[in-house]
């Protein structure tokens, strides 16, 4: 347990809780960005440089921006006056606490977890690219198809209904 890990873990957890509990949606999304950045730093700690940078590029550069755009487009940028929690929120908290307890028990009691830390893997971007273009080329193509479909789908869903406006 290095001090760097503890600091990063605390930052990530605190900002994640803030992202889920603040009243103002824009504050939520900004603390979500801190969570994403903390996770990217954790990936860098785990020697997954490419994934860390991709995380920053995609999550902070695209997903977070999409979320703030959605917040502004649905006019939920102001702090709401009414209750922000759903009716059965106590049950929700209990369920997630139970989930965490089960996961934590499994993590702490599993004997499949190696006790010693192996040497840092020396993985370059070239290795990742080679793997993507040889062994994982089919998933890559499927992902390209999925992204195209998602883009077209998102445009069609969010497009204004022309017929209704005429009526």
């Amino acid at each position, binding site marked *: 347990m290095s001090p760097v890990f503890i600091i990063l873990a605390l930052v990530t957890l605190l900002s994640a809780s803030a992202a889920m509990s603040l009243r103002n949606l*824009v*504050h939520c999304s*900004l603390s979500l*960005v801190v969570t994403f950045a903390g996770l990217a730093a954790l990936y860098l700690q785990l020697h997954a*440089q*490419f994934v860390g*940078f*991709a995380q*920053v*590029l995609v999550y*902070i*550069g*695209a997903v*977070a*921006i999409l979320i*703030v*755009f959605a917040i*502004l487009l649905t006019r939920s*940028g102001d702090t709401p006056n009414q209750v922000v929690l759903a009716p059965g929120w106590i049950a929700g908290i209990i369920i997630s606490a139970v989930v965490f307890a089960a996961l934590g028990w499994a993590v702490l009691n599993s004997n499949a977890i190696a006790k010693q830390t192996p040497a840092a893997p020396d993985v*370059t*971007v*070239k290795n990742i690219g080679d793997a993507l273009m040889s062994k994982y080329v089919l998933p890559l193509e499927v992902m390209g198809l999925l992204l195209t479909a998602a883009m077209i789908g998102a445009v069609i869903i969010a497009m204004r209904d022309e017929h209704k406006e005429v009526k």
Partner: protein
Amino acid sequence: MVKSLDQLFVNLKHWAVGFFPDAWQPLGSAILSIAPMVAVFGGLFAIITIFERKGLGRIQNRYGPNRVGIPFTDIRLCGFGQFIPDGIKALIKEDVVPRAADKVVHFLAPIVLLIPVLLAYAVLPIGRNMTIADYDAGVLFFFAVGAAVELSVFMAGWSSRNKYSLLGAMRGIAQMISYEIPLILSSVAVIMMVGSLKTVDIVAAQSTYNGLLPNWYVLTPWGFAGFIIFFIASLAESNRAPFDLPEAESEIIAGYFTEYSGFKFALFFLGEYLGMFAISGLGITLFLGGWNAPFPFLTWVPSYVWFFTKLTTLIFTFIWIRGTLPRLRMDQLMNFAWKFMIPMALINVVVAGIWHFMGPGLARWIVCVLLVGGPYVLLGRGLMENKHLGKRTYRFAD
């Protein structure tokens, strides 16, 4: 002698690091790499603002700043001391925060702008052996930290609680997201050709000479097209005219930093210029051969001199464009990005692949020029259709 001049700063740093105790050497090395970088680019910012005001003045038929020189003396320096009073003014001005503003976010926005911009300099090779962090995924790092700039624009625009700020922020984010795609796609062609995301490798791949001409990527058909796309997209990314809609003074006051004053405004100003230098530096690395000399007989000039010569040339082009082109409209901006830049950048990636597989010879020049030029003409024609852009007529002015 030539070599020692080229490595002067590298050797100087190693010599200075030697004075630190052993345990502190990594930290000392980091500080001695970062501090000069910040100082040099900060100084460049100060000089370039004067050059910009003078250049714009000349273009608009006036003088620009020409009074202030060294304080308390009679030396005028043609007005190049102007940045000192400007800086002092920015520091001591009152820092006004609107009453309705979201104070924390309002305070954080300029910092969120400046830190990623400074981080981006870590991967720029400004000279031989002069890169702070030679990451394996250097170019990706550059684009990743650039993503945080959009966030800062949003934070500034939203937290000010001002409709002009919010409008400017929405414009800014839409523009940055749209132009980031051609920016990245045009660099993908270079990355494909080099086979590495390391900025140092990209520069090394362009270090040979073909007779008298250098092997820079800008001197190939796909590289030329890619450089033009990169340059236009970087104009838009750094919110420079003709893409300065987010801060269009005549339409929305100052866009997302309308409600910023004093030192925070200066931070925005600094961040914007440093971002412009960083992205020009990346363009130099990717297309213009980095710190390599343009001709083989000029290789004795130190490498960092070449980098900064190219950088200032690009910046002057930025200033020149700002002084001569009118601002785009929002729909023109979006159409240009999505209907012209992105298709051209995609075609450019394919052309780069064809260039690689056709092998050396005249044939690949002809094929690639046609493949880049054809879509350019067709797309341009297609977009200009039904626009009836003739000579401008004035209905009421005459």
